[in-house]
């Protein structure tokens, strides 16, 4: 599903490589956990899978990265977004709307669903994630966990083939972390390919089917 071949990337203006000589093949339906110390390149690896690198962050790009057979350099970001969805680490800044239900509808409308269809799917997704009680609440008033679940709902509602998550449990309490991983485990069992960057290695070992340690050395 995802292939890195002799891949290296250096951000524009940086001397040091963010990622160096990455050779990695992630099969379909995998639940891959990315571990590594801060600054090791976990976020850069996730950005490379979905095309944020090099479409948004420019730099020296070596080798090849492909997702579902599409080269991430040559394929427009609009096309890549149909395959992969990402939950960014800074969820607060990533929201496009004021209310959780609108946030889910926003992505669906962009992918061609009518307003009525989008609202129906948003309803179902909120039920699946157990966040129907968040309807009508201002996103900025939600707790860290509720915001993460809203961002996750917005990502999975568009039914991507690959779900990427960048430190999704960062500010959460232990119980909420487990909740997020249980949801992901269920989605993976339904066939979704998941790549997650997470500092808590115990969670990665418990829930992920494989693990990859990122190092930019």
């Amino acid at each position, binding site marked *: 599903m995802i292939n890195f071949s002799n891949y290296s990337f250096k951000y524009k203006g940086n001397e040091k490589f963010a990622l160096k000589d990455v050779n990695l093949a992630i099969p379909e339906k995998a639940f891959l956990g990315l571990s590594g110390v801060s600054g090791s390149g976990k976020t850069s690896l996730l950005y490379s899978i979905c095309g944020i690198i090099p479409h*948004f962050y420019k730099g020296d790009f070596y080798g090849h990265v492909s997702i579902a057979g599409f080269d991430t350099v040559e394929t427009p970001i609009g096309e890549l*977004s149909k395959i992969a969805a990402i939950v960014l680490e800074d969820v*607060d*800044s990533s929201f*496009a709307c004021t209310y959780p239900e*609108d946030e889910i*509808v926003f992505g669906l409308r*962009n*992918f061609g669903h009518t307003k009525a269809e989008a609202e129906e799917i948003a309803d179902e997704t909120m039920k699946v994630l157990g966040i129907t009680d968040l309807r009508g609440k201002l996103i*900025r008033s939600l707790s860290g966990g509720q915001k993460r679940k809203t961002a996750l709902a917005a990502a999975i509602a568009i039914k991507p083939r690959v779900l990427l998550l960048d430190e999704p449990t960062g500010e959460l309490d232990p119980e909420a972390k487990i909740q997020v991983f249980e949801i992901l485990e269920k989605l993976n069992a339904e066939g979704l390919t998941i790549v997650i960057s997470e500092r808590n290695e115990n969670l990665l070992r418990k829930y992920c089917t494989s693990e990859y340690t990122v190092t930019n050395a």
Partner: protein
Amino acid sequence: MGGLGYFPGDSFLHKTNPIIKLIISLVIVTAVFAIPSLIAPISALVLTFILAVSAGSGRWMLHIIKSMIKFSIVIFVIQTLFIQTGDTLIPLFWGLRVTYQGVMFSLGFVLKLIASALPLALVLRVTKGIDLADSLNETFKIPYKYAYAIASAMRFVPDFADEMKDIIEAQTARGVEHDAKGFVKKARLLAPICLPLLINGVRKAEIAAISAEMRGVSNR
């Protein structure tokens, strides 16, 4: 009470089509500037206030007017001092004087300023950003990417207000006296707030743009 940006409600104004609200606000703003009389901005203020009350935002509008009055007084004084033609009302120092024409022009100017800002603020108060973007795209065929950018800019207003509060609190904790009195002292304190606010603003806007692109905003 909330600041600028959408506030939920079930009023007639909330349910009205965003484009109709936008057109009405533009008609009010045009009338304010097109009619050369103080009656125009005063009527616009009264009309906008009545509409705000009908949408359950009367107190909010009074709060906005109050904030704008502080700013308007400064503009009024500067503008009055710059107009030195006409009948003298109050002679000042160094040959400067307050004239009747100066007072009337400056009064009209600040009233027009307030009266033209409020209708648009009210539209944003009673319209969800996403609905406004959809309507601009569907009715005026504005590319969705741009319509979304216009509408989503308002989403960041409360975020920036929170960010500014955080920066002030962090600086206060490190000994900066933000409750200092005097215009010059307050102005000097603004620069160290603006810089981190600007840097954070650019970073947030970048993340928001990436997030929107990854959710197919360019596919529409």
